[in-house]
């Protein structure tokens, strides 16, 4: 069990089913190959040799992420990886986003949670296709899970793919899924200094949604300070103040999504022309 967050990653379910076990980042511990000694008790007199490996720990994840990115580009799909702590209002914001887009843009959602299908059910109720990945004890989605999920979804050309990562402000920062952007959601019911406490995520994101802004009059949260902290970590971070409840900032967020979708679709068309 992980000493940091209790994650284990052995109980993954995608759409309620076990993924195929293979050689990817999700691979489960395989029994040692025949002839391999595994115990301490067999004293060996064989000579040690040093093997230079020089391999990045995330190399496998990054291979899957690159393959996902190629597939998404080929289909003109604008993919966003939404990350935050639990309770920031990600799912409510997604539901509101789907409702406001009102079918004008084909979209699909991948939901990541340790347990339950609840979030996927909420998304489906809002009218969008959703696939739930349950990571079991795992504390983040990885690129191989997304590759497997994408295979099982009927993703449309020139569409939007929203990936709601497991609520965790630490682990998902390091795992590229092949998305166009990480979008970090910080709600005003959290502390202003979260960006300083959890800098990795704010560094990895391109957009921050400062959510639940309708509550600002009732809180002592200093929104300007939160933005200042976030941009201290990442000077290029764009910020939208938003409220899924009051609708504040939704137009700007939807415009940002539409612009990304248009650019991605144009990229696909150029790619198709080049390949013709």
């Amino acid at each position, binding site marked *: *069990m*992980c*000493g*940091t*967050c209790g*994650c*284990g*990653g052995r109980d993954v379910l995608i759409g309620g089913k076990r993924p195929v076990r293979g*050689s990817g*980042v999700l*691979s489960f*511990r*395989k*029994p*040692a*190959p025949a*002839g*391999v*000694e*595994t*115990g*301490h008790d067999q004293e*060996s007199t*064989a*000579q*040690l*040799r*040093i*093997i*230079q*490996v*020089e*391999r*990045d*720990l*995330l*190399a*496998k*994840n990054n291979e899957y992420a690159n393959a996902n990115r190629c597939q998404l580009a080929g289909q003109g799909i604008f993919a966003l990886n939404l990350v935050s702590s639990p309770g920031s209002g990600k799912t409510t914001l997604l539901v509101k986003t789907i409702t406001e887009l009102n079918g004008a843009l084909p979209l699909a959602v991948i939901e990541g949670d340790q347990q339950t299908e609840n979030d996927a059910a909420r998304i489906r109720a809002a009218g969008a296709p959703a696939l739930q990945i349950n990571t079991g004890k*795992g*504390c*983040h989605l*990885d690129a191989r899970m997304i590759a497997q999920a994408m295979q099982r979804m009927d993703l449309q050309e020139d569409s939007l793919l929203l990936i709601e990562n497991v609520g965790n402000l*630490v*682990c998902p*920062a*390091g*795992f590229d899924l092949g998305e166009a952007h990480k979008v970090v959601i910080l709600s005003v019911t959290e502390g202003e200094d979260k960006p300083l406490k959890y*800098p*990795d995520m704010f*560094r990895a994101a391109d957009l921050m949604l400062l959510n639940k802004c309708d509550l600002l009059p009732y809180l002592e949260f200093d929104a300007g300070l939160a933005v200042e902290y976030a*941009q*201290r*970590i*990442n*000077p290029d971070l764009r910020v939208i103040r938003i409220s899924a409840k009051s609708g504040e900032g939704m137009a700007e967020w939807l415009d940002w999504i539409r612009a990304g979708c248009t650019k991605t679709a144009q990229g696909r068309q150029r790619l198709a022309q080049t390949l013709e």
Partner: protein
Amino acid sequence: MHEMSLAENVLQIIEESARSQNFRRVRGVVLEIGQLSAVEPDAMRFCFDSVMRGTLAEGAVLQIIETPGAGRCLACGATVAMQEQYGLCPSCGSPRLQITAGNQMRVKDLSVE
């Protein structure tokens, strides 16, 4: 950062190397972990021992080489030592620092028999 799944990735790299380099037992593993990579060496040690149990690397000695962080100031071009993922350039005060070293997480080498 997710040390458990990173430790699983270490095992995967070891198993792939065992097949290509033809060894049956791993006695030592050297990891290079950058100070800016957000991996806790202690958590990694804990996860490493747990993941390697029952494998060809059970009981292997883990050595972690922590490499220092460094960056380049995008405003003035200065080279900056970095202890955290963010900071201000000591020369010009700009926060626009690009990490150039210290964010890697690599299996450097293995002692095998």
